[in-house]
């Protein structure tokens, strides 16, 4: 039985919790992300399990990639296996949701129509299971990678279709879902990799091309070998807003400033200035050629203009967070907005809408206002040096990036602006690198 030593970094952010797993060579072999919640311990456990599952999947992938006899079938097989694996995980969570919904329906107030309610819940979840395959097929464009987001969208749509104001109301179905999704969010699946990868393998082979089917035995044995590999987590470092809650000793906890600096350096070694706009704080960080932080500035106690502000705006507009940027990008006439106060976000938005201003123009103004705040912080931290790396959840927002690009050019001239598709993992990556260094130092 083989053994794999890994180092893990966990970033407990105010909005999402992330984990990154590194192998001895410092390569990322697993990642996990989940919505943060009031219980940081659960968020930590969920994200760790997911990262370890992905680590095992990486192992499977590598085993197959390094086997020359499987070269011809590797690509179609692996992509189908991954989709099926994700689908299996999704279905697993749906099963958990079904159970939690029925449990929530046990409350006395539903007794009178319990049977009908149970039947309707089953019908909804059955349809969600059918829809699940669609989220993970080859051409699927998922709006989110979070189970919670996908499940909420599907459930709400189905509940609206099936509810009946004279019978089981939409409100009843919503209350049940609110209770159940919390349970699902706070439950962990344990080490179910073997079970899920076997199921995924079964369905992948069943629908595979004859060429792949010919190699079924070799593929099965490659998958099985990774199931039996022992994964040893030799070093772990935690960071982020909730880091004090991590069940680690103090020396295994690093400030997110250091982690973001090192993470940005690892992603883009030319980085000298990093900007991280997270859920509750914004950080402007200067790093040296080794990724060591030389100075930084953070927003003060007011979280105006941080990621959470965009969250409120999205809620007010009844949009997904990921939809804000693309909508703002459609603006042709940006509106000037000065305040980025999260508390007044809703009022400001409603006022402007009532003046007849267009949503995309308001959004473009809001994004620029956020970036203007970040620019002030960057100036306080000593300016924007070349290269400049933008990290954190807000770096995934196209309108924020557009505003940043133009303001940096205006204020500091041409700068290389780095944004990684995986920027949300920057802090966790930095933490994992600190863990790896610790492991090397201990060795």
């Amino acid at each position: 039985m083989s053994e794999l030593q890994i180092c893990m970094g966990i970033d407990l952010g105010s909005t999402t919790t992330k984990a990154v797993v590194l192998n001895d060579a410092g390569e990322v072999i697993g990642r996990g992300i989940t919505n943060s919640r009031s219980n940081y311990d659960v968020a930590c456990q969920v994200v760790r399990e997911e990262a370890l599952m992905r680590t095992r999947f990486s192992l499977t992938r590598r085993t197959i990639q390094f086997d020359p006899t499987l070269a011809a079938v590797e690509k179609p097989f692996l992509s189908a296996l991954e989709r099926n694996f994700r689908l299996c995980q999704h279905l697993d969570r749906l099963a958990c949701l079904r159970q939690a919904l029925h449990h929530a329906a046990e409350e006395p107030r539903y007794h009178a129509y319990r049977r009908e309610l149970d039947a309707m819940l089953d019908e909804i979840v059955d349809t969600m299971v059918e829809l699940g395959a669609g989220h993970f097929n080859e051409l699927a464009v998922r709006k989110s990678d979070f189970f919670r987001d996908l499940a909420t969208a599907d459930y709400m749509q189905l509940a609206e279709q099936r509810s009946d104001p004279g019978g089981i109301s939409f409100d009843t179905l919503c209350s049940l879902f609110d209770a159940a999704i919390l349970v699902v969010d706070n439950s962990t699946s344990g080490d179910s990799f073997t079970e899920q990868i076997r199921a995924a393998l079964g369905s992948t082979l069943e629908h595979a091309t004859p060429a792949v089917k010919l190699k079924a035995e070799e593929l099965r044995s490659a998958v099985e070998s990774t199931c039996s590999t022992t994964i040893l987590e030799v070093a772990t470092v935690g960071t982020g807003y909730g880091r004090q809650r991590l069940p680690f000793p103090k020396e295994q906890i690093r400030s997110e400033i250091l982690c973001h600096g090192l993470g940005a350096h690892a992603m883009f070694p030319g980085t000298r200035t990093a900007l991280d706009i997270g859920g509750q704080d914004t950080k402007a960080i200067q790093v040296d050629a080794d990724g060591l932080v030389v100075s930084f500035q953070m927003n003060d106690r007011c979280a105006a203009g941080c990621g959470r502000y965009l969250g409120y705006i999205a809620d007010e507009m009844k949009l997904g967070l990921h939809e804000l940027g693309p909508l703002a990008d459609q603006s042709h006439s940006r509106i000037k907005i000065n305040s980025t106060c999260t508390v007044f976000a809703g009022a400001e938005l409603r006022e402007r809408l009532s003046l007849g201003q267009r949503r995309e123009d308001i959004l473009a103004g809001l994004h620029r206002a956020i970036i203007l705040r970040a620019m002030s912080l960057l100036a306080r931290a000593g300016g924007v040096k070349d290269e400049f790396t933008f990290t954190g959840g807000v770096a995934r927002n196209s309108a924020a990036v557009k505003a940043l690009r133009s303001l940096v050019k205006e204020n500091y001239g041409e700068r290389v602006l780095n944004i990684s598709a995986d920027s949300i993992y920057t802090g966790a990556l930095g933490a994992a690198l600190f863990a790896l260094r610790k492991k090397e130092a201990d060795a």
Partner: protein
Amino acid sequence: MTTQPGDLAPADVSKEQSMLLQKEMIARHYSALARAPQQGRKVVYTFVPGNLTELLRSFELLPVLPEINALQAGMRKLSGDYITEAEKHGHSEDVCTYVKCDIGMLKKGNIGPTGERLPSPDLLLLSYTGCFTFMKWFELLRQEYDCPVAMLHVPYQAEGRILPHHVEYIVKQLRTEVIPKLEQVSGRRYDEDRLRESLRLSAQAEDDLVWTLEAAKNIPSPIDAYFGGVYYIGPMFTAFRGTPEGVTYYQTLRNEVEDRVRKGLGPLTPEGTPEKERYRLVVEGPPNWTNFREFWKMFYDEGAVVVASSYTKVGGLYDRGFRHDPAHPLETLAEYCLGCYTNLGLPTRLELLRQYIHDYRADGFIINSIKSCNSFSVGQLLMLRQLEQSTGVPGGFIESDLVDPRYFSAANVKNRIESYLQMLEQKRAGATA
């Protein structure tokens, strides 16, 4: 200051003799203030930087220092209500929170830190050194109390040093404006011999204060020169300069610190003495008072000890050589007023901090930028950059307020302190940290 490190901590925390002594002295002072109207003693309100305690004492006048009352209210969690009260009376959110705390306290009955009513002033002695808000503050108090005001204008040290005409200008004001008003209010004649005697006692206590502050050059430092330092400057910066009690206090303090140096002990804090001095820091800017103990613990938890601070120089830069000189009583008071920290220009402040970092072998420096204190905060970001350049030592920047509890975000401040110290650690250890 009546609140002591020991008071902030559980009862089993050890209290040194000097702490008990200071507590008694200040309780006596507030008690004397409370009884002043009945006993016919006259009271002068004045500010800490550039205070003329020896001169006031020579006229048997009792000083009240509004900043001290405000910081005491902050430590006792009363300032939030006082500030809200002042805001109800129309004072904006951006006004200095010492001012608002003082106005709010006044509007709510002027009950001082010990629970006794503070007497109304018989004179407002406005000596403003480096803080022009002082002038507006006393304008407000002037509207509340029907009493005379004596103005003492202290010129800003724009050239980075005290010039003879500065001293002449202040001495002239002392002779023509301040002393006549003190004579009028007290009904006594100016007694220069008495003033000289008081100044002699001041200089004696100042020697011991400087010795205590400079003991932080030892490794480990036996004192915390910021959180502990604010207690050490208490008697000197308030009502006890030039008094025999002041002299006794500083002798006692010095003996205790000498003892800690002999034993190789670190500073006494409300949490105890840190196991190890991991970081030696210089701090620029006043502390936050509303969460003082929590703020101090953030340093203590990381083994960070402050070895020198600029805040402990707001009432005079004794460690740079200044002593009250009985031979030239009015000139020495003038020089004292001119030399207060907030009366210095940015280059002088920078040079002082640079020397502290060097002389006290500091690993780093932190600026606590106070939202409502323009005198301190203006230019601090520039100071940060220039100090980093001139010393090669990285600086940290945190933001809080004097006594407005709404401006203290513990998570944010802690995050910045920890990040900064980890940055220092990383720098120390190189890339393998």
